[in-house]
């Protein structure tokens, strides 16, 4: 049963979970495939099973491993993660606007009423983003040392 919903663009069918059923089933099948492959490969009787001390060592090009592998790592990796977070969230703000702004599906009424405002809002948004980007560049965040 389809429920109609009125949006600024016109009449649309409401969200229905049934559109996602194929993905849910597919997800189950894919998980089953991945887990099943691992279990089958583990349980296969044909394969050799001769664990030795050297085989069970961490691989360090044939040498005996030196020290632990739980190393401290450079803070610049964390910095990249933070920058990613900032820019990716900015991008996510732009997606809804990109869908509704100029597409054929958005209504003419919406565009005359709000299109200009939305455009200049996004311009200001991008200008702030560009300013932050310039600051980060001069600060040296993007230079990998």
């Amino acid at each position, binding site marked *: 049963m389809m429920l109609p919903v009125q949006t600024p663009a016109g009449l649309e069918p409401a969200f229905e979970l049934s559109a996602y059923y*194929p993905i849910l089933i597919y997800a189950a099948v894919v998980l089953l495939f991945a887990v099943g492959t691992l279990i089958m490969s583990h349980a296969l009787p044909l394969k050799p099973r001769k664990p030795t001390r050297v085989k069970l060592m961490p691989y360090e090009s044939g040498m005996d491993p030196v020290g632990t592998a739980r190393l401290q790592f450079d803070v610049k990796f964390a910095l990249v993660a933070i920058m990613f977070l900032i820019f990716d969230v900015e*991008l996510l703000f732009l997606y809804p606007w990109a869908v509704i702004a100029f597409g054929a599906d958005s209504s003419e009424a919406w565009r005359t009423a709000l299109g200009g405002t939305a455009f200049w809002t996004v311009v200001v948004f991008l200008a702030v983003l560009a300013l932050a980007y310039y600051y980060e560049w001069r600060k040296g965040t993007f230079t990998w040392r």
Partner: protein
Amino acid sequence: MPVFDPTTTAILIVVLLAGALGLAGYLVLSERKIAAWIQDRKGPNRVGPGGLFQPIADGVKMFLKEEVIPAHVDKVFYLLAPIVSVSTALLALAVIPIGPTTPPPPPLPIPSGATPAQLVDQLQRQQAEYQQQTSFVLAPGLDVGILYVFALGSLAVYGVILAGWSSNSKYSLLGCLRASAQIVSYEIPLGLAVLGVILMTGSLNLETIIARQTEHGPYWFILFQPLALLLFMISLYAEDNRLPFDLAEAEQELVGGYHTEYSSMKLGLMLLAEYVHLVISSFLVTVVFLGGWSLFGLEALLGDTALTAGLKVCILCGKMLFLVLFAQVIRWTIPRFRFDQLMNLAWKVLIPLGLLNLACVMVVLQWGLPWVTLTGTSLLLLVGAGYLSTRWQGSVSVPRRKVVPLPPGLPPGVTFAPQH
């Protein structure tokens, strides 16, 4: 929304899974054959005619190898990593069109004077008509389309981090750190590049994106967004850890990178995930920039619907295969970047270019200029960036170490001068 049909779903799932697995196997073969061709060797040629059964032999070998789980690993996460990798890779196939598609109908405009009952009736008829159409997509009409693919691409980072961290080995840790920094950095230019196309289509749905490129003739977005296509492909290769961006598993320095400690089918699943990523990226480029199943009206020559559907599947998959082979040739054409070059390329070149390109698209669409303007601005930005890079001592193209010319008068064959 199309009606959920278990039979079609089951058939499509089988086709997708079998296709992805078979294709991944044969892509390994083509990768080795292309490598051999470029290096003037023969490549695998013992199993079957011309090595055609090599993928099967490889698969059997993967299954029969000894399952080594090293003593030092974090077992739960170590075993979880291949599962996460391969499932996130395969799941992204769910919204990718693999053949002819019908876009979901646009919202019904509401004229003044129409009664609600009439409108609802009209909407129901429109939806019923849409449900008659066949779409070669597992989940058709999904309005999040491309965001879903990006979301799963981001989740792929977890497979890498889990594998590298739980392996408790130095090579794995270094590989996973590099891979995660690289994947998150290139996600941003990827999103920026595709934003321009989304502005032009006004939909995230992949079927609609194809329809916008085909409904008024072959208006492929490669024509209007060549710069975005370039940014998109570069970012995709980096996301997939393809050469020239395979710093995460640079064989000469990190052995296998994050899957150094993996063996048998666990390694098999990791490698499968990589090739599935490559296939999905190629499908995405085909659908978003290369017009999906259209080929200059050639697809409409056959009148018969079943034949046309087959032809469209062939065209779409042919384009995809071409892009995959292109990636494999690129692998042997461009040498690997250094890690600082890689990060600088993402943050200092691709992101500003993506932002400028987005600004151009915004301005052109807001003032209703013809789309051809965008081709001009794209090319202008590309040439401008190239010009700037020659004027400006950037860190991408210039070596960081100081290069000192040798003093004159050295005998031939001497390549360094002793410091006094």
